[in-house]
């Protein structure tokens, strides 16, 4: 399924101005065809960082009924400030959903940077074995960090930095993962400009999660596997998001009950 999705995704990429013909089947079995015109991304573009190319950047934050939702299309530094402001504004009784579905990664330093807004102690999101020596992904707790429950959504399109953040927060006991197994493409890499101007991306080490799980090739398995069916898509149901929301509501309900019990016994 993951390979099929990746293949379909790759076939949908085409130069701006060209047309892509697609064919599909509805949940009721009806065949259909359509043509998509490839247009430039009209939203925000992340600024290139050295050899790292500019990418379309989308991020979304919202808070309703004590459930905060944060979605990031790619790890680009331009998103850091609004995300930080959003996280800092959450209250102790809130729950947080981080949606990394379809996020292919980006600037790796953002993963420990975001984790710093979710932790109250110094730790590491994982370790990288280099040709010589090794590195961690150190996390430094930030003042005003959100310490409430966190649900994190992943799927086959979640790769690289998304997987480092997901596996790290899960292994550190800081998040529960929902959705589908991630891409398993997490090796830290660099870009080199070749003489013809092309970029050559190459891995510089092997990464493992805080509990020593290798991410490359295997991906990150969710704690609760929740797939997306054609019927769900047709009816606008987001089953992984619904599962994460239900889990958070249950957690927050339990915590509220426990805090009320605790308050009663202390008075």
């Amino acid at each position: 399924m993951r390979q099929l999705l990746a293949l379909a995704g790759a076939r949908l990429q085409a130069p701006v101005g060209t047309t892509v013909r697609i064919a599909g089947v509805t949940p009721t079995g009806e065949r259909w065809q359509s043509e998509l015109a490839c247009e430039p991304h009209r939203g925000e573009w992340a600024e290139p960082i050295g050899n790292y190319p500019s990418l379309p950047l989308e991020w979304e934050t919202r808070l309703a009924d004590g459930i905060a939702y944060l979605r990031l299309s790619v790890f680009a530094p331009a998103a850091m400030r609004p995300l930080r402001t959003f996280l800092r504004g959450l209250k102790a009784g809130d729950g947080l959903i981080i949606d990394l579905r379809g996020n292919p990664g980006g600037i790796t330093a953002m993963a420990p940077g975001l984790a710093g807004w979710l932790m109250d102690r110094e730790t590491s999101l994982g370790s990288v074995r280099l040709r010589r020596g090794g590195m961690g992904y150190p996390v430094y707790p930030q003042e005003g960090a959100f310490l409430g429950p966190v649900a994190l959504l992943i799927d086959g399109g979640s790769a690289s930095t998304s997987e480092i953040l997901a596996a790290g927060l899960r292994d550190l006991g800081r998040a529960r993962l929902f959705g589908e197994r991630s891409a398993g493409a997490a090796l830290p890499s660099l870009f080199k400009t070749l003489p013809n101007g092309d970029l050559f991306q190459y891995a510089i080490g092997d990464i493992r999660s805080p509990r020593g799980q290798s991410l490359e090739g295997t991906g990150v398995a969710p704690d609760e596997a929740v797939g997306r069916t054609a019927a769900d898509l047709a009816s606008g149901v987001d089953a992984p998001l619904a599962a994460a929301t239900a889990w958070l509501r249950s957690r927050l309900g339990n915590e509220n009950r426990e805090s009320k019990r605790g308050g009663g016994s202390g008075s």
Partner: protein
Amino acid sequence: MNRLVATAAAVIALAAETAAAEPPAGADVGGTPAERARIVVQRWEEAQGMRRAHAEVFPRDAACEISTGDNGPAIKARFIDSGAGAYALLVQRPDGWRYGEFSAQPGEYWFVSDTLGLGRFSGTSDLVNLMRQARVARLPGKLMEQVRLPDFARDGRTFHVVGTKEVAQPVQFRLFDPERGTLVQVDTINDRRQVTERIRYGDFRAVDGVLEPFETVFGEGPQRVTIRTVKAANRFAPPPGFFKPSSAQVSLWQRTEDILKKYVAASGGYAALAQIVSRVTRIEVTNEGAGLTYQLTLSQKAPDFFLSEADMPGVGRAWQGFDGQTGWSYGELQGFRPIRGEELELFRRNGMLDLENFPKRFPIRRSAGVKEVNGRRTAVLELANLLQRTGLHSFDLETGQLLRIEAELDAGGEGRVPVTIDFSDFRAVDGVTLPFRTDLRHPAFNTVTRVL
């Protein structure tokens, strides 16, 4: 002086209040507070043999285990104290690293380790000072006041208390075991009657007929240091030269000192370096792996304060600083983080403004031979201080310049990475010679910095 007299007066006043309220228990009921204190102190001197002749006791030899807080493996140590200033402290840390500290005469304090080489210091280390206090707690020599204070009860036991005041020193409260006469606790008190330092003595055992504490605890809580004596002997007979490094070792150390002095001279010399008390440098940084080039401004103030401000395209601004005590970093991606340990040491060393103090800052040195660096023959020294090792430093044999540092750095989590920094393009600025280019090689990336 007025404050000192006032503090002493406070102790006497406290004693007088107590005397008026209720006489302390025990045989020392009559007399003035000073006379009653003397009775307690005399009992202690007899119990712990404090009036023995010097030659009856020294040199003393003790094997100890030193631990911090509640947990953690203990450091093993052997301390030989001549009683006349000379000493030798041999330490084996839990990680297996062994080193020794010794001194034969005031002003010459040596450090030696199998792995780090020989070091020369201007004073004794904290550990030596603790070891000296661990077995003997003599009364201050120039005692100003000594008064009997109210008894103190703890855990169902009562202790006799004597307040002492030495010239130019804070007040101390000394707790004595009324049954054995031993000194069990020394509290140092500030002007607000708060305990600033506490030493507790316990596990008394007889050595040559007198009682000695075999367990001494300095401080309280997780920071406390406990020294447990495993074996103790008086009148140890050290072989000749025991407290001195060999002449060959001293000669080796002197050669490292000459190399570092030549480096100071090549950098402009003591006089010129001492005149530079602040500097602002504009630097261009190129991270070759990431294809990223940006500029930073480094502001420095003697001795080693710094603030660097960088503006990275696509990433944002980032700051790093050190105010003499705390190293810190703030960046758009990672937020605030502390800079400490080896990373801080590397920052301080690279940006060191008071280069004239370079030899003093790295008193522990090991010669690692001669090797070629970028076509130049260099003398390689491993430099360290008591806090940490700082890696291999290659000094140009001809010019004296520092051409390369090779170090292994903490890289987050349990990671460590080898790093090599090459210095080149030396130019003179205000009589001081600086490298205008550094090339940092890291397993994951290479960075070139150029002074603009």
